[in-house]
């Protein structure tokens, strides 16, 4: 893993998410897409570290710190181990993985945010569904440039 390139990629994705994409009503979650990408194409120890790091980046640009580190970390790690059983190498499978991971992460983040006594948005689940669907549609196409930047061979299975 090229960690400097990884940090640069996460930084760019975080800045784009917080600025360019933040003003759309429903937007793709770049950090979610990257989480699935690293869970699918990295070895387990690297993928666990990247999951939590991406969660930290997601928390930095969200209203409260903590919920997304845990959610991204937990479900990113779960996806790593799932990937050992079911290889997620085809684009439709990757899209499904992004969609389901997005829903699970969003739901856990929601509950953890409530645990912090932070109020929730009214249409939270509708927004979550839209974001996950959008990310699932866009995500697999972003895997190739991400793999080129990190210098990962995507056809490793």
């Amino acid at each position, binding site marked *: 893993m090229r960690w400097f390139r990884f940090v640069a990629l996460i930084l760019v994705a975080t800045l784009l998410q*917080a*600025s360019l994409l933040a*003003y759309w009503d429903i937007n793709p979650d770049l950090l979610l897409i990257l989480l699935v990408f690293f869970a699918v194409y990295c070895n387990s120890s690297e993928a666990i570290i990247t999951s*939590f790091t991406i969660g930290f980046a997601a928390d930095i*640009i*969200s209203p409260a*710190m903590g919920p997304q580190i845990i959610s991204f970390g*937990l479900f990113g790690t779960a996806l790593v181990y799932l990937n050992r059983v079911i290889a997620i190498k085809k684009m439709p499978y990757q899209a499904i993985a992004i969609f389901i991971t997005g829903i699970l992460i969003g739901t856990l983040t929601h509950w953890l945010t409530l645990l912090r006594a932070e*109020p929730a948005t009214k249409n939270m689940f509708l927004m979550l569904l839209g974001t996950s669907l959008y990310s699932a549609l866009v995500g697999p196409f972003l895997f190739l440039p991400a793999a080129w930047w990190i210098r990962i061979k995507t056809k490793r299975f």
Partner: protein
Amino acid sequence: MAKNQIRCSNRMTFTLLLLTGLVFLLAPQSLTNKFQLAFARIFRWPLSIGRNFSLAARTHQPVKQMLKRSQMQYQNHIDNLEELLRQERLKVQKLSGIRERLPLEGVNLVLAAVSMAPEGLKNELIINRGSDDGLTVGQFVLGDNSIIATTSDISSRTARVRLFTDPASKIAVTVGTSNIERIMQGNGDNSATIPMLKNRVKTGTQVFTRKKPGFLDAPMIIGKVAQSERNKESPLLWDITVEPVCDIEALNDVAVIVMNPNK
């Protein structure tokens, strides 16, 4: 053996990182907010470029939008003055003799650029002014001559402002010409609700923030009534939905009302 070691190492890494996450989750928000404010301060330049680019891409008719915005600003100013005039008349009627101040007379308006809006709830903004500029928690924030938010977290050079549409925001308001104080709470979807009103309120009626000693000297417009619907638990009462009177997402600059500036 080696495999077992790697597995153990993975577990250890996972546990340590999970514990770090729990520490962040359970740590006081005033402490964890420093990370977010530091990020906004360090990357304010790329964040503002991205934001401006996004807003420019969304604006199809710049001249029309600008005219509409100017019209909105004047309308808000007129509404503020009309409300003040109404209150003045009430005062005269009571022969109190107390002179009311204009909404922004004698206050220090700290102009601030919007650095970023935290992703997700979209009901908060981060601005490039902080305690060094005289900001404290709870001050009102103006956008296009209307109240849009209050300051919630302050660092030395940045601050987080909570829009009145945020579910955690509760602001004392009056509806139209009624003098009865109500609490307006945000919904999180670019609107707020005033619950349990006795009468239905006409759509378009102005909603004003109440005076708050030390923070706001005169009522100022905060929103307009978008709809009235019956309360689900008490059908005899009405819940009023209030929407902002300016396009908050399009604001590049806001002004913080500092009532007692340090001279």
